């Protein structure tokens, strides 16, 4: 197995509006020294709630958001060090699928042009070859070639997501970043898209960096899972280890909060792990563990010392009291 992507200490900061007349500009650290790696042909899921920094992490990885520090080694090359033109050329290998199938396609372009555009930009093939490739991709993602000339608003949400996937596959990328690709879709359509993604991964040997808030979806698609909380990875493990034996109290809380058919009101189900409140503000993150205020296990040390990600069985956990 070869490592496709190796991210080290990735940090993203956003400057906020100045406070007062000459005051300093406060900085929001959305992603705080995040490290992970992804093997060729595998899928890494990043789960977390809104504000956890999961999407920003993915966007910074492929340089659609500027990173403040760290390394993104893609096939042995640090993407963050490339100049604009070199990065532009690299984009043929790293592609992106968006959350919102309605706003991710240019409403004024025909879908055939949308799918063909990456080849135009990268100057791949002759016009005939490009056209043939678009038709081929349309079939691959389950659309009909007679729909090529339509406009995005003439498709349903699920179909648009297929178009988005076709566009991402045009240049034969190695890495596909999927940012909540099914969360805007109805469950029945979700299943169609998830099955398509699973099929493409197997057939084309793609690697996914898969962002989602939905644990069930991540379990279905991913081989490894990282859980983020307030800009940091708090637990990272192979899928089964994470779902069967979560080590971090936050992961446990997430799993116990996710609704599931197995939990039935009629059978007197009571949530085993309850956490209260909201995540703290990322503008002034707590000194110690960010989860301490909501954690049922928190001790004095948790509020003072920031835990680091350390191996614990098959998992890696950032917690003073894992398990």
């Amino acid at each position, binding site marked *: 197995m070869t490592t496709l992507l190796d991210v080290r200490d990735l940090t993203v900061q956003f400057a906020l509006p100045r406070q007062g007349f000459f005051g300093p500009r406060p900085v929001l650290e959305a992603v705080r020294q995040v490290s992970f790696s992804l093997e060729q042909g595998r899928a890494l899921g990043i789960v977390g709630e809104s504000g956890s920094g999961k999407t920003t992490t993915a966007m910074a990885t492929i340089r659609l958001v500027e990173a403040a520090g760290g390394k993104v080694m893609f096939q042995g090359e640090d993407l963050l060090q490339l100049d604009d033109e070199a990065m532009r050329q690299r984009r043929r290998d790293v592609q992106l699928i968006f959350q919102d199938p309605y706003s991710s396609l*240019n409403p004024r372009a025909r879908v055939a042009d949308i799918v063909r555009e990456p080849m135009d930009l990268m100057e791949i093939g002759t016009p005939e070859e490009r056209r043939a490739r678009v038709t081929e991709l349309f079939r691959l993602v389950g659309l009909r070639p*007679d729909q090529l000339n*339509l406009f995005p608003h003439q498709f349903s949400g699920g179909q648009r997501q297929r178009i988005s996937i076709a566009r991402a596959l045009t240049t034969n990328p190695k890495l596909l970043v999927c940012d909540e690709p099914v969360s805007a879709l109805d469950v029945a359509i979700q299943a169609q898209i998830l099955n398509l993604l699973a099929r493409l991964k197997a057939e084309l040997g793609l690697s996914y960096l898969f962002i989602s808030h939905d644990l069930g979806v991540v379990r279905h698609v991913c081989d490894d899972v990282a859980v983020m909380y307030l800009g940091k990875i708090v637990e990272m493990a192979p899928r089964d280890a994470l779902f069967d034996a979560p080590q971090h109290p936050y992961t446990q809380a997430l799993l116990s909060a996710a609704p599931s058919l197995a939990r039935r009101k009629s059978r007197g189900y009571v949530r085993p792990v309850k956490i209260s409140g909201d995540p703290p503000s990322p503008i002034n993150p707590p000194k110690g563990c960010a989860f301490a205020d909501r954690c049922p296990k928190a001790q004095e040390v948790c509020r003072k010392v920031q835990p680091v990600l350390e191996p614990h069985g098959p998992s890696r956990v950032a917690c003073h009291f894992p398990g």
Partner: protein
Amino acid sequence: MTEATTFKAESPAREAWRMFRRNIPAVAGVIMLTGIVLATLWGTFFYDGNPYEIVWAPHEPPGVTPEFPLGTDYLGRDIFAGLIAGGGPTLAVGAAAAAITMVIGVSLGALAGFYGGWVDNLLMRITEFFQVLPTLLFAMVLVTLFSPTLFTIAMAIGVVSWPQTARLTRAEVMKIKELEYVTAARAIGARNRRIIWTVILPNAAPPLIVSATLTIGVAILFEAGLSFLGLGDPNTMSWGLMIGSNRAYILDAWWPVTFPGLAIFLTVFSVSLIGDGLNDAFNPKLRER
């Protein structure tokens, strides 16, 4: 997955055009404006009546002498001839000023909205500065300082009117810039210039087209106001000037001021009917409410 087959491939622009054609007031506006423009063209190139020539007794009421259907003014000049001759300069200045307004406003607004940061800051400060200057007063000063010709008048109107267009463009561009299809263009390796020209501007176009239409109307009113005050091009007849020069005698004769005013009104009215129609056509959802 059969539902998409029931649609024909219809581009958003075509769809808007289909909506526009069905809008009766808008079509009426188009017809009216076409009539006015044709009459003006005819007046400019073929009509040989002289609007300055004293042809009859002063203050001949309309409808009395068939030769002068709209009557004569305080000097005995033919009002109909004035209307026909005055339309050209009024419309030309209006269109040119609107074009200048749009060019300045759209380019500055698009730059500010797309690049943000200090570019935005600087351009918006300039915009705010120009918005503080009272438009007509500032235009009067400009026209007087650089001597009133059709060109300087159009320039002056453009220079004082662009800030609103700039703000609108900036707001549109900023809104669209945040949408995922712009990120999508970046993700497949499109350069900034391509993103601005092929993604952002086409999508920002509908409100800008509506705004351009309405700007023509405002510019025509502006030109009329300047001419009314006597600050128009002294070498051309215009509707505003006709009103201004007959103003002292309104209690003796209503017609010399009424007809040019009606001409201005109808022109601007038809332009704004078209603008409203375009607005509805671009936003079919708003109309259904």
